[in-house]
């Protein structure tokens, strides 16, 4: 357990930001991960009094305060409709209800944890991070950055026309995932990828991201989630099982995986193939039959 010398409920984001510039300060989200560590926190900064525990929905976007709990995300009717149930599927396997009532979206995203279902799900949507000092940054860029002392204020999810599916594999229920997979079928190719983000979506910076109809986010590799896309246009036209399987093999060849106590790199690459194939089939037309 960590030790905390001072605890301050911030009365403004400016105050939180100022306090967070000092070494030894930590912003406390849900405290689930922070608590697992050791060491001293000079000043724990609590953002709970800043009305950041709300989800606002407009015609264009969701604005999700950093202190919104994973349970709030899971139960939000607008997010459920927009993601076709994928948001709930991404969250419902995370430990338990009591845990998800505490864990915050800000903590999950700022941490950029390898195991994160939350990062995997947000990455496959057109998501942005609003930082107090750094402004609004696409999540695909933020997820590649190192840690700094900025304050994550909220997540913004643009309602690009898309359908989503999500799946994960766990060795045991409620455990960390062995692999996570979010997938999106974009209804409008023109808005699929901002051009300035090309190349930022894979750890391999030499890769070129072409605009495509499908976007896949793979996490718990065990490294943090990254995006891969249908650059070869394997999934164009009607998505047959053969095309889906071909895309699965393509994705397995592209997404870097590693080994840890939950699974080997080889097993994870196999899972990439299987989960991407299934996701492509679902997005290709079988989703409704399965879901309703």
């Amino acid at each position, binding site marked *: 357990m960590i030790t905390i010398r001072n605890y301050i409920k911030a009365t403004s984001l400016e105050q939180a930001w100022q306090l967070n510039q000092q070494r030894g300060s930590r912003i406390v989200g849900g405290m689930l991960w922070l608590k697992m560590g050791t060491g001293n926190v000079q000043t724990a900064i609590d953002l709970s009094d800043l009305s950041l525990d709300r989800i606002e929905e407009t015609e264009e976007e969701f604005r999700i305060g950093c202190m919104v709990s994973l349970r709030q995300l899971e139960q939000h009717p607008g997010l459920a409709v927009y993601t076709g149930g994928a948001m709930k599927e991404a969250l419902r396997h995370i430990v338990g*209800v009591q845990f998800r*009532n505490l864990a915050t979206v800000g903590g999950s995203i700022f941490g950029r944890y390898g195991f994160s279902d939350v990062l995997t799900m947000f990455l496959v949507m057109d998501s942005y991070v609003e930082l107090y000092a750094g402004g609004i940054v696409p999540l695909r860029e933020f997820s590649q950055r190192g840690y700094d002392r900025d304050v994550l204020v909220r997540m913004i999810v643009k309602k690009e026309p898309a359908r989503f599916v999500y799946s994960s594999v766990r060795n045991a229920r409620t455990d960390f995932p062995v692999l996570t997979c979010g997938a999106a079928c974009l209804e409008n190719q023109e808005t699929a990828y901002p051009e300035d983000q090309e190349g930022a979506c894979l750890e391999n910076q030499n890769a070129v991201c072409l605009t495509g109809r499908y976007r896949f986010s793979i996490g718990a590799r065990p490294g943090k989630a990254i995006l891969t896309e249908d650059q070869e246009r394997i999934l164009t036209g009607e998505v047959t099982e053969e095309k889906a399987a071909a895309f699965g093999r393509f994705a397995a060849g592209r997404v870097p995986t590693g080994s840890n106590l939950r699974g080997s790199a080889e097993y994870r690459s196999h899972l990439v193939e299987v989960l991407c194939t299934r996701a492509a089939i679902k997005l290709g037309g079988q989703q409704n039959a399965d879901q309703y």
Partner: protein
Amino acid sequence: MLININLNGKNVRSEADPDLLLIDWVRAQGCYSVKRGCETSNCGLCTVFLEDKPVLSCSVLAVRADGKRVVTLEGIQEEGAEFGAFIADQGAEQCGFCNPGLVMNALALFRENPNPSEEEIREYLAGNLCRCSGYEGQMRGIRAYLEWKYGKSHMENEG
């Protein structure tokens, strides 16, 4: 720091260190039903209601609960005993250590969803670990309780 928490309907003012956890604070107030099972925020044994929501008290700072309502099993003994009897009838638990957490979270489930399906029960209670059983006894106890409480037709959506 001076904190003021409404614990089981009573306002309790006390001094709390910044890193004191809510579990230790409620135990210091005599609520011994709240226990540590895992230290990794996984087992659900330390479940309390914070502003009516079930949370892991091992992972909440007491100072963060300042000004809020906290309910432990001691605060809802009647309701807990009523439900707990159905778990006991099944002989569901061998050691019973996990029982207070399960009872708290099951009651939270029934408040949120009085007519849960089998899958909804399993999903809601997934964060309550029991190392003696395979959960079948608990599931039988829950079904029997809901049947008794809400009538036979209640569980017909089980299929």
